[in-house]
């Protein structure tokens, strides 16, 4: 038995990593829906979910149970194979794209094996992500077609045309970063940013790709972020699935669990895009402070301990008994985590990388949700002309200027 484990250690470690990552991603998805509903509600001056569990924290659980128990009708006249395939495809592709994202620089040392945080580091990391995004168009197009109904067909066609158009701008806007970093691998991109000089020779935040190097990639970042919002069919580019326009677009005829699969796929691709933004343009796991300011290593604890104490204080004043029991417990766990980071420096050093990456991902997710609450949506022809006539030329210009700047600085 031990022999078997030793021989196949790599595969077993990968399997365990995949299981953990899947579980984490699905939980984050669920609480992302809670987060979105709460934030959009507060933007609109209302409460959002606050009945199901303290502060509505059990709402995702209730939604999940609803999705599982609701009736799942199949409309008449659909092409059965394609109808069942489309949500599966969308979900599988969205979850696969998380596999290439690196979450931290240092490996865990466990019984002689170096376990890196992140399932795999391909040499063609970012190309693999684009390949998966390119295949993601099928989930939408096939769903629209298979539903045997006008509105889904129109919604599916429009949505897939939109995704294909913005894919070009998405890929082009990353070329500037690839030119500056010289590699497709995501770990190498972050390591190049770490080793770079940064603007004006300053360290810290100025080493990030968005400020650094021969040409700061601000244009590239803006093009990438806008194209990514269009790719994931979020506001302001969500005409094909908006409720007032096309009933619900390509997922009109999909009920409970299949709709949940599309839903999870959309939120997972939001998470993937946010991680890509942070890795490519904002330095991934690099801290914005220069390396010499070691006192900033206590920032995770400084954030976690007061937050945990506030949750405890809010919990003991909460209305329901359930809240009075659960919230202090959650707050205690958070504060204890912060205390652990203060007391064990080795653990503190280890979590610095993942902490910064996760904070940046969180900030981008917040920007996504903020845009959902604030912006109106584009009309379809405005959307297409924006993608082809403005975004693609700007990203091409970014490539040309970056290449010229690199040649100039290497002359």
């Amino acid at each position: 038995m031990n022999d078997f484990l030793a021989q196949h250690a790599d595969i077993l470690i990968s399997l365990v990593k995949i299981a953990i990552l899947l579980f984490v991603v699905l939980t984050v998805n669920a609480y992302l829906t809670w987060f979105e509903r709460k934030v959009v509600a507060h933007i609109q001056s209302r409460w959002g979910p606050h009945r199901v569990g303290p502060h509505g924290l059990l709402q995702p659980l209730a939604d999940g149970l609803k999705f599982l128990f609701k009736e799942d009708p199949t409309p008449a006249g659909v092409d059965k194979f394609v109808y069942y395939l489309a949500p599966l495809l969308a979900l599988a592709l969205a979850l696969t794209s998380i596999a290439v994202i690196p979450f931290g620089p240092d490996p865990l040392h466990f019984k002689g094996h170096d376990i890196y945080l992140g399932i795999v580091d391909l040499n063609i990391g970012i190309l693999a992500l684009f390949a998966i995004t390119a295949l993601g168009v099928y989930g939408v197009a096939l769903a629209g077609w298979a539903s045997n109904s006008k509105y889904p067909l129109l919604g599916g066609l429009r949505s897939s045309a939109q995704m294909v158009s913005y894919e070009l701008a998405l890929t082009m806007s990353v070329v500037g970063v690839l030119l500056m970093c010289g590699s497709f691998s995501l770990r190498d991109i972050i390591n190049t940013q770490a080793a770079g000089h940064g603007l004006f020779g300053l360290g810290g935040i100025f080493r990030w790709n968005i400020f650094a190097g021969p040409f700061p990639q601000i244009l590239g970042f803006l093009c990438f972020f806008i194209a990514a919002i269009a790719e994931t069919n979020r506001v302001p580019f969500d005409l094909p699935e908006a409720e007032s326009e096309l009933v619900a677009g390509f997922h009109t005829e999909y009920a409970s669990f299949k709709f949940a699969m599309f839903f999870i796929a959309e939120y997972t691709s939001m998470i993937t895009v946010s991680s890509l933004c942070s890795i490519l343009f904002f330095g991934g796991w690099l801290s914005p402070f220069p390396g010499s300011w070691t006192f900033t290593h206590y920032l995770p604890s400084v954030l976690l301990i007061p937050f945990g104490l506030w949750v405890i204080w809010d919990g003991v004043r909460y209305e329901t008994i359930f809240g009075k029991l659960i919230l202090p417990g959650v707050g205690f766990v958070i504060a204890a985590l912060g205390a652990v980071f203060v007391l064990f420096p080795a653990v503190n050093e280890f979590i610095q990388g993942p902490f910064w990456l996760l904070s940046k991902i969180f900030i981008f997710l917040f920007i996504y949700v903020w845009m959902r609450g604030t912006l109106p949506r584009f009309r379809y022809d405005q959307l297409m002309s924006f993608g082809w006539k403005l975004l693609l030329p700007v990203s091409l210009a970014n490539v040309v200027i970056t290449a010229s700047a690199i040649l100039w600085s290497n002359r």
Partner: protein
Amino acid sequence: MNAPLVVFFVLAAMCIIGAISLILQRHPIHSALSLIVVMVALAGLYLLMGAEFVAAVQIIVYGGAIMVLFVFVIMLLNAGLEERTNVSRLAGIGGIPLAIALTGFLAAAVARSQDTVQAAAQTGAVAPTKALSRLLFQDFVYPFELTSFLILVAIMGALVLAQRENR
């Protein structure tokens, strides 16, 4: 029976099943989906051979653009089921074994040619993309520019063909 061989057989089986499914399916959209399976399996085979950039380009361009075009056209033209074909039975009964025999002869002939082509070591696995791009932009720069011209011509052609008649 090492791991690469097992992976090869799995991917090759996927390719062949996809191709046979392309022939046997009656609705064009199912044929298109089978072709997409073939292309993804081929991309896997390219990865197995160490051609990672070609594998990524295969999925992005072939699987993510060309086949999307096919799927769009099938959806827009509302292509229905294929009708019963009236090709002769004799062609099927005689032709398929002959085709299998011919392929078998070809495979045997190729397998026996020891002196021409052998399984060499992995192609420069250190930075294949860099070497490939160097080749593409230095030795093959003229065909590369010509293909960009070709794509421009194709775009113009598709635009002209898809216009509605005004008269």
